[in-house]
């Protein structure tokens, strides 16, 4: 790639990055400009891609058919695909006061297709997790920790995997207690008089908050990663490689 073009291209990206980061100082017009430019580019790209990547190959080509390399008939076209166009355009009648009821036809079709999948997808998503939640909480050996399995294979490894060690049992107890407490927090969301249940609920709330804390920690780390990557782009890829050519 031409090095001068690279400087120009990456220079524009650096300018956009700095413009967007200027909001850290205060809300300003430069930030607004780059924000709108980004949105405009993304929408423009999406509109073109919707035709070139989606509608052309999955609808248009199937409707009109294709020819082979010699110009002879290849795949025949299926005119029935044409009926999708008026049906999908009915969706835009949502803006008409008189005919907006017609927009419910394509929405209903999409909802029907989606709803038809739900029983199966719900079970494939959560079924294996129900099974995984049934964990042994009682050790079946006197050893507390799992031995180092490095270099072990075959039946010896399988035997270690089947054994519930003391430390593993403690892990599983924490898991099962967390599961039950959090479930009781969500299931008994009314005013509970029974002391044990009330305490279980409180514990569930605390355990949830610990979980959210872990998620927040991951989020902070990801934000740091994003900043580091931008700094790497500005200082290493643009300044060092493109401008200084090192």
């Amino acid at each position, binding site marked *: 790639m031409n090095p001068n073009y690279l400087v120009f291209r990456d220079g524009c990206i650096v300018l956009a990055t700095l413009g967007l980061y200027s909001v*850290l*100082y*205060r*809300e*300003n017009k430069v930030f*607004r400009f780059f924000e709108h430019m980004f949105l405009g580019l*993304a929408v423009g*790209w*999406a509109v073109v*891609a*919707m035709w070139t*990547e*989606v509608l052309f*190959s*999955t609808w248009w*080509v*199937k409707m009109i058919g294709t020819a082979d390399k010699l110009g002879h008939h290849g795949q025949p076209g299926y005119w029935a695909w044409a009926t999708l166009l008026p049906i999908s355009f009915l969706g835009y009648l949502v803006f008409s006061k008189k005919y907006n009821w017609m927009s419910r036809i394509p929405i209903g079709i999409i909802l029907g*297709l*989606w709803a038809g*999948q739900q029983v199966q*997808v*719900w079970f*494939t*998503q959560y079924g*294996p*997790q129900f*099974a*995984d939640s049934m964990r042994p909480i009682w050790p079946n050996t006197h050893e507390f920790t799992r031995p180092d*399995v*490095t*270099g*072990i*294979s*075959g039946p010896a*490894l399988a035997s270690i*995997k089947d054994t519930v060690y003391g430390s593993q049992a403690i892990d599983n107890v924490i898991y099962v207690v967390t599961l039950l407490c959090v479930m009781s927090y969500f299931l008994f969301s009314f005013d509970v008089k029974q002391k044990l249940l009330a305490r279980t609920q409180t514990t569930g709330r605390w355990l949830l908050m610990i*979980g959210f804390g*872990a*998620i927040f920690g*991951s*989020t*902070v*780390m*990801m934000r*740091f*990663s*994003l*900043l*580091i*990557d*931008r*700094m*790497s782009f*500005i*200082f*290493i890829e643009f300044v*060092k490689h493109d401008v200084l050519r090192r």
Partner: protein
Amino acid sequence: MADAEPQVVSTGRKGPAIPRPLLYLLLILATATPLFFDNISIPDQPADPAVFDMYAMLMTIPTDRPVLVSSEWTNGTRAESRGAFEALMRILMHRNIKFVLFSIADAQAPPVAVEVIRDLNEERKKHGERPYERWNDWVDVGYYANGEGTAEALAVSVQKAFSGKQDMNPQGESEDVFDSPVLKGVSTLKDVSAFINVTASATDIVYIQRLASKTTFLEFCTGVMGPEAIPYYSSGQTKGLAKGLRSVIDLETLMVTGIPAGGSSRVPAAVPGILPASDPRSKGRGNHYNASLHVAIVLMILMIVIGNVEMYRAKRGAAS
């Protein structure tokens, strides 16, 4: 909107305040400085079993069938996702595994992934290795707008889901992707080695719901998504999981050290590394950012300590 005044971070009810722009400047300096020093190396000891399984699975999936790579990230999460995608591509290219690239999340995702493959090919040429050829080694079937429908279609028939899609052959002509060496003979998910999702959005759930039980499903997600993805790995729905930059660093380390026998819960045998430590490619994007990440975290901890000390002092001052 009217221009607002710069914000300040209060460290206590009546204590001093640090201007927020100063904090940002400190953070920028702290994260940018280590990037200039290529020789800074933070020792890494991978400990996450999910990453061990990810590497072990990638190194043992059959090479005679292609893998489906759904690349669901763009430059917005380049920091984490590009490193993950590069690591994945290096392993697939090392093992000569053919792959199909597509996306259900974002129309910009396939071109971004293609750019990474182009950069990796340049790198391969520099190291005297053959470039991974479009059409012969991989094909791009592009973007699909309806994720749920596409996943459902893939679960039934790969051939029907990708029918009508074309890609460029080496002569520069568009041809049906099923005429390429990559997808020749592929009909259903049984004909592919694995389904790999590199994602920055909730597409993993769409695939887990519809097709993860029918093939080997592996997932590279961002750090934010990590905690939510763990239950699916734990239950075996996801056979290997890499979460954010931390996992990319671990994966790059495993690509050098390999895994001893018993190191992975899914693959009992030892798994070799693919790069010598002396190879510059062993210090990938994850390792390049590792020092900066550590400095940023130290800075954050320092600021939390200073903030708490100042708040405590302010409270004591107010009480007396």
